């Protein structure tokens, strides 16, 4: 049956409400899914740590793909600003090429440059002095007399060159290698000047400056250089963490979640967990607060009236909506995908059980096929509810990271960290393992 124009409009409205993009503070779609009772809210933890630490600190924030890192960073920004902090935001990928190795000299330069641009963007840059790019140019061309002035111009050209000209970056890395201390002092001085300027504008009473340096976790190289790029990131955090602390500034770096496996001694990384829909017990008993949060997310996206029209009953609790929520694994991106599939398939309103089921089947098929070896590891994770990482070797860590990034494995934190596998793949994993066990001849005595 064809939709009426009004129903078509409803379908369009719903589809657009389910767009998958980072939400800005104040968005009507924002659902505080990490704020419910019984869940560790990494944003609150970071805010408390910042508030408790005088003047400066270093925070590491992480999350797997689709966990809403950027949205949550904006929430942190908003809550700190409400406390009077000056919070600046920088996107690492504006300045760094994620496909190339990173060095501490690159990072320091980019940190200062990003901070400089953020000051400018927030209207705090007009402080009667050069921006960082000009200072850097001067430093590179006059102070150290290493670089031909014709090669670097301040501002956009220098930024662009850093990002797009690997040979230029390499040349800087080589020439600055023995001058890291000097470069760090330069960078620190710039930050210090920046904070002074903010104080001059805001008065002495504001509690502090926070700099959110986002997207650093994206630095991972490509097929041909993945190993060397990842090694460079590991080197950065394991050897140069001290240099990444910036005076008078609370630094928040978004980092790749796998760092926790390969640099275990690193300061605590706040990782966004999956929303907990079940308890860590054998039967996976429902955890009501997680369900409430996800039901509220769906209801908020659809709106009260459209929810009723689409599902055929009032929300936020409705059996058909619950069927989709039950298999999203506590990942809002997967939940949005399930909802989109249902909205695109619906032909009559309200949606039928068959459409809901076919939406689930469609999203599940995104996870298939599962390799036998993967299934065996996933089965173990499901049984022990731990990462069950065989070693911290590169191969195993990469595999686990891939599981977490693709949501085959879910990460939970509620006082204790634990893992489980995605509800959409549980049966498939069990079936593969069972089949393999049946096909494996018993070991000879």
């Amino acid at each position, binding site marked *: 049956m064809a939709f009426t124009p009004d129903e078509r409009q409803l*379908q369009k409205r719903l589809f657009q409400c389910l767009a998958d993009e980072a939400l800005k503070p104040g968005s009507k779609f924002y659902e505080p899914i990490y704020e419910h009772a019984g869940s560790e809210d990494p944003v609150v933890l970071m805010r408390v740590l910042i508030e408790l630490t005088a003047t400066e600190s270093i925070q590491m924030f992480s999350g797997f793909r*689709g966990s809403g890192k950027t949205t949550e960073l904006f929430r942190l920004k908003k809550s700190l600003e409400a406390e009077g902090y000056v919070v600046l935001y920088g996107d690492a990928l504006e300045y760094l090429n*994620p496909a190339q190795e990173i060095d501490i000299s690159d990072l320091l330069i980019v940190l200062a440059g990003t901070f400089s641009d953020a000051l400018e963007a927030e209207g705090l840059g007009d402080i009667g002095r050069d921006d960082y790019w000009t200072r850097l140019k001067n430093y590179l061309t006059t102070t150290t007399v290493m670089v031909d002035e014709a090669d670097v111009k301040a501002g956009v050209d220098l930024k662009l060159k850093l990002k797009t000209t690997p040979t230029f970056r390499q040349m800087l890395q080589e020439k600055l290698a023995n001058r890291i201390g000097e470069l760090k002092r330069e960078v620190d001085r710039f930050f210090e000047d920046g904070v002074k300027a903010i104080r001059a504008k805001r008065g002495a009473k504001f509690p502090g400056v926070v700099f959110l340096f986002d997207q650093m976790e*994206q630095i991972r190289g*490509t097929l041909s250089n993945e190993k060397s790029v990842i090694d460079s990131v590991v080197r950065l955090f394991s050897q140069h963490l001290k240099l990444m602390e910036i005076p008078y500034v609370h630094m928040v770096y978004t980092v790749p979640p796998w760092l926790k496996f390969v640099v275990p001694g690193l300061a605590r990384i706040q990782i966004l967990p999956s929303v907990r829909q079940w308890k860590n017990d054998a039967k996976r008993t429902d955890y009501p607060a997680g369900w409430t949060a996800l039901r509220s997310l769906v209801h908020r996206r659809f709106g009260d009236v459209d929810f009723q029209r689409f599902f055929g009953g009032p929300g936020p609790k409705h059996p058909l909506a619950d069927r989709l929520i039950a298999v999203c694994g506590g990942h809002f991106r997967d939940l949005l995908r399930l909802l*989109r599939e249902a909205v695109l398939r619906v032909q009559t309103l309200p949606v039928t059980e*068959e459409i809901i089921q076919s939406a689930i089947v469609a999203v599940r098929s995104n996870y298939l096929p599962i390799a036998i070896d993967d299934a065996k590891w996933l089965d173990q994770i499901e049984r022990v509810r731990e990462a069950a990482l065989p070693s911290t070797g590169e191969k195993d860590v990469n595999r686990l990271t891939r599981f977490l990034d693709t949501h085959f494995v879910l990460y939970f934190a509620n006082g204790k960290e634990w893992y489980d596998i995605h509800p959409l793949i549980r049966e498939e994993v069990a079936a593969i393992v069972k089949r393999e066990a*049946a096909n494996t001849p018993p070991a000879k005595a």
Partner: protein
Amino acid sequence: MSNEAQLRWEDLARRYDLPSQPEWQKLLTLFDLAEGFSLLVLLVLDADGAALCRRELEKHLQREGNQLVSIELPTPDDLRQLPARLLAAQPPPNTGCLWMSAVEPDYGKAYPEWREAWREALARLNSQRNPIRRQFDLSLVFVGASWLQEVMRETAPDLWSVRTLVVRIEPALRPAAERQVPEAGRFEFTEEPGGGDPFFALQEAEKLRSLPGKELALARLLHRAGEGFAGRDDWRAADKAFTEALELKQRASAQAASVLATLLNLAWACQILGQSRRSINHAQEAVKLAREIGDRRGEAAALSNLGLAYYSLGDARKAIEFYEQALAIRREIGDRRGEGITFSNLGLAYTALGEARKAIVCHERALVIARKIGNRRGEGGALGNLGLAYADLGDLRKAIEFYEQALAIRREIGDRRGEGNALGNLGLAYAALGDVRRAIEFYEQALVITCKTGDRLGEGTTLGNLGSAYYRLGDAPKAIKFYMQQLAITHEIGDRRGEANSLWNSALALQMLGDQAQAIARAEAALRNYEAIEDPHAAKVRAQLAEWRKAGAGS
């Protein structure tokens, strides 16, 4: 456009029948609803499929004044350059879709090279996820063979994480023999079909033919021979034996219960032979007789058989009415085994109506009953039927799981015929998943069993499915070879539906080879068979035949 090219497009359009495909409709709906950036992964069988999708999508976009812009990727090297080309692309403002297609099936010669090229391109694109999202305010469509999903998930997890939709498009005009074999609850005998030697029974019967007063004994032997033939899938011979037995029993005023047993079995033979109307007549007669003598169990069996005959004629609603009457009786008399069978039948009818959830509930009930009464054969059947229901729902992985459980039980209890069924259904599920090579492995195993057990019906179906698998691999000559083997068997055992299917499928394969005249001849023969048995498939074949004739006249 040349005539030849036009014909090719028309043929492709018929093969895929995109407007009838829910997945395609989903894709078009997305283009109607989406605003801004979206990332689509379109998985197709081969380059032809991609070309057709592109052409149809272009038409769809043009209606809204938009256009499809393609980044052409004719070689693996071009594909490797995709990241740079994509980021440098500046599509015109009315671009509705940026199309990037490189489709090489996993059985293609150049598959390894294309796979590596996709891996390289996607790995580079992965690091550009955010710039891509910022740069494009339109839909990006990555088009590849089914293996592209896995490659993208593994090598470009960032990009994969922001996918809007994954769409799978396969030809709609699939070989008709790709039917699934219901595992249980098909037709009911008042007693299990005998496994005796029908020729011996006939030999003994011959001795009584000329003896007066021995009509009932003769009828009993003929009935037994009929059962023996049924057990060997020789349905014409079974029909002949049951018909003669019935006439003798009626003439000699045999006990009603005995007449009822032959009526039910005869109805079954007619059903297999594609003579549903005759089957209904016998089943109705059986219902009447059972009511006259108060045989509640027989009445339920007859009602159930009547339901199945209507089900075969495509009237699933009427079938459900009869099944429900049967179910009520079986509950009343506490016939748990019969109740389980009726649930299986109800499940199959709901599947035909597209009510998969109801079907699953029915099969689950059948399973519970079978387990409760320790009916292992019934348990295997219910599991197999659950597999069919999930396959119908598109949940092939779950279907496979059930088929595997059914297979295990069949092997455990030594039910070789059931084992062949389960293997055949596993093959169908893997074929539907696109893993045609694995499907062939299962079909080959099933074929060995059907040959060994003398399951001619199963052998014919399996040969047809093998043909269809090779058809999907593009190997039309091999497909035709299997279809012809299937035709010989179906003709021999009098399976008219199977005969029609093999003729129709070989028509499709001949069409693939460009042999239009032969294709039309086979399709006409198939149509005659479908019409004779009132198969709902006849309408589709008729329409297709008309188009082929028209195209033939045009050229």
